């Protein structure tokens, strides 16, 4: 699939011709991220984060495979093997800091990618499948990130594993046996550490597979754009290469400068000092928090403090998972035919309110589990679900959107020949 004016792959080198006949891999690349993929000409830097996320995945897999060469997933030696990586292995400190900060970098990129998706309604038809697969990738990332944090077997690793597997214990009837089965014991131990390591190694490759599906699904309708108006003619698009390889390359350079500043100058800024204390099953750290990228969801988990038909513990778990699962229904909750937030005055206001709400949840997730934070969490959580389940459907039915441009070309140049004279008024160049 592609637009009819997409450039065709025409190899001239005999080796490439041979390859193209037997296994058209270069053709696939050409059509996916090369000159053969026409992309809307008006993409802003908000469209940079897909490529950046792909870079992060490769970065994490490369540094992760290196770390796995030196790490030992055994509760007796895991902590020391991480110190061995830091002190003895050539460049081991760089590999570990690059991997640990790489996880944060990955989540920053994904949160910005999601921000773009929410504002420009990237989830709407015909890109529902792109969105659904994306949410699956996000869930897989969260599982992978959590299990990776357990591997150094420090205090936060151990108690993180205990608390998060405890979530499953909230499920009625099967909860406790399920938790014991997940851990392979009554508390996190060697069995849990080993299986977390195995799955932490496996899941990134599952993510890579989902990324391929994500891109495949995206390339059927083609990329969305800041106007939300679909591509109508060749003048609306540019070939991905060299235009967006250059733009994404520049964005990558800027992102790497920020990332490397963390890796080299403040590698532990996003970590927790308690994780440099070896795991101790008999002593819980005073203030236990997950990694920063889980904070908004952690705040939702802790917001439920009272039993109401179901136990509070179960409500918390249900709400936390629902906070992400509700995204699966977004394409059908937001029925407005207009995609871009730029042309939706009412949606835009509530969108920013949601952003503020999520930032508040983020702040509360990192705060102590005491008043007034708990009350704030309850209010912010209530608003979060209110936005998706009530406000968004209402907005999409009562809102009067602003007029859309005729085409991407008109949005960019202020005029589009075809808008005035009809299609094919001017012969294609």
């Amino acid at each position, binding site marked *: 699939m592609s637009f009819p004016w997409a450039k065709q792959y025409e190899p001239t080198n005999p080796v490439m011709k041979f390859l193209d006949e037997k296994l058209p891999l270069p053709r696939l690349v050409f059509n996916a991220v090369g000159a053969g993929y026409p992309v809307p000409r008006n993409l802003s830097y908000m469209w940079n984060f897909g490529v950046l996320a792909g870079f992060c995945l490769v970065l994490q897999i*490369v540094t992760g495979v*290196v770390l796995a*060469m*030196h790490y030992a997933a055994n509760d007796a030696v895991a902590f020391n093997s991480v110190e*061995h990586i830091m*002190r*003895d*292995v*050539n*460049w*081991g400190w*760089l*590999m570990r800091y690059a991997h640990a900060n790489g996880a944060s970098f990955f989540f920053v990129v994904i949160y910005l990618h999601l921000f773009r998706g929410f504002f420009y309604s990237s989830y709407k038809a015909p890109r529902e499948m792109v969105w659904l697969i994306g949410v699956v990738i996000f869930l897989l990332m969260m599982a992978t990130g959590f299990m990776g944090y357990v591997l150094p077997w420090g205090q936060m690793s151990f108690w993180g594993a205990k608390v998060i597997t405890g979530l499953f214990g909230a499920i009625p009837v099967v909860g406790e046996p399920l938790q014991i089965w997940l851990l392979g014991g009554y508390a996190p131990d060697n069995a849990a550490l080993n299986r977390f390591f195995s799955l932490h190694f496996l899941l990134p490759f599952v993510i890579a597979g989902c990324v391929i599906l994500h891109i495949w699904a995206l390339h059927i309708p083609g990329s969305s754009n800041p106007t939300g108006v679909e591509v109508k003619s*060749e*003048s609306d698009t*540019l070939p991905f290469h060299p235009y967006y390889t*250059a733009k994404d*390359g520049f964005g990558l350079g800027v992102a790497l400068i920020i990332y490397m500043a963390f890796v080299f100058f403040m590698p532990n800024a996003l970590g927790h000092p308690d994780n440099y204390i070896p795991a101790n099953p008999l002593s819980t750290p005073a203030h236990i928090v997950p990694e920063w990228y889980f904070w908004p969801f952690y705040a939702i988990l802790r917001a439920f403090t009272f039993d109401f038909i179901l136990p509070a513990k179960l409500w918390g778990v249900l709400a936390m998972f629902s906070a992400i699962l509700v995204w699966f229904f977004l394409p059908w909750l937001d029925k407005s035919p207009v995609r871009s937030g730029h042309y939706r005055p009412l949606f835009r206001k509530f969108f920013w309110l949601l952003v503020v709400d999520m930032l508040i949840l983020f702040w509360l997730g990192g705060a102590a589990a005491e008043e007034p934070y708990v009350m704030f969490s309850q209010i912010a959580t209530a608003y979060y679900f209110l936005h998706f389940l009530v406000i968004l459907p209402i907005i999409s039915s009562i809102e009067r959107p602003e007029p859309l441009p005729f085409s991407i070309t008109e949005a960019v140049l202020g005029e589009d020949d075809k808008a005035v004279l009809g299609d094919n008024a001017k012969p294609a*160049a």
Partner: protein
Amino acid sequence: MATTTDTAFTDAAAEGGVRRRDFIEIAAVATAGVGGLIAVLPLVSQMAPSKDVLAESTTELDITSLEAGQSIKAVFRKQPVFVRHLTPAEMQAADAVPVDDLRDPQTLAERTIVGHENILVVMGVCTHLGCVPLGAAEGENKGEFGGYFCPCHGSHYDTAARIRKGPAPKNLEVPAYEFTSDTTLVIG
């Protein structure tokens, strides 16, 4: 888009086939390329021996109780080392061989330290494919030449641990070592 290309060609014609943008393109791609290559360096280097492995690089041995005709096995860099106290008969047998007839020509004197010619220190690693040769322990097969015999592919070493028969290309390696006293030696 046609206009973009036209402008580019016009500029190129005006500047003798070289566009100003060519410089930017080459500089950008070169920077990314060099950066990528530098990033590969730690990825390759991390597989080399780590600092704790390098720190294991010496082994100290006390050979006070090693009598003529006896051998001991020690460990140097996680590999066996054979230390043999040669008998006068074994030394004579080694010196009697014409050096030119050997596959890897070396005299016993070249393979030992002056003043300690009767102490032969070699790596217990066959130079063929790395098995541990027999002959260091009591009652083991010492091969046709009374030194060491590798059971994997049948390499025979003589009393100076030189290759005499079989597929191995080199004599058993003599590691760097020194005597810190008459009865103490340090390997590595």
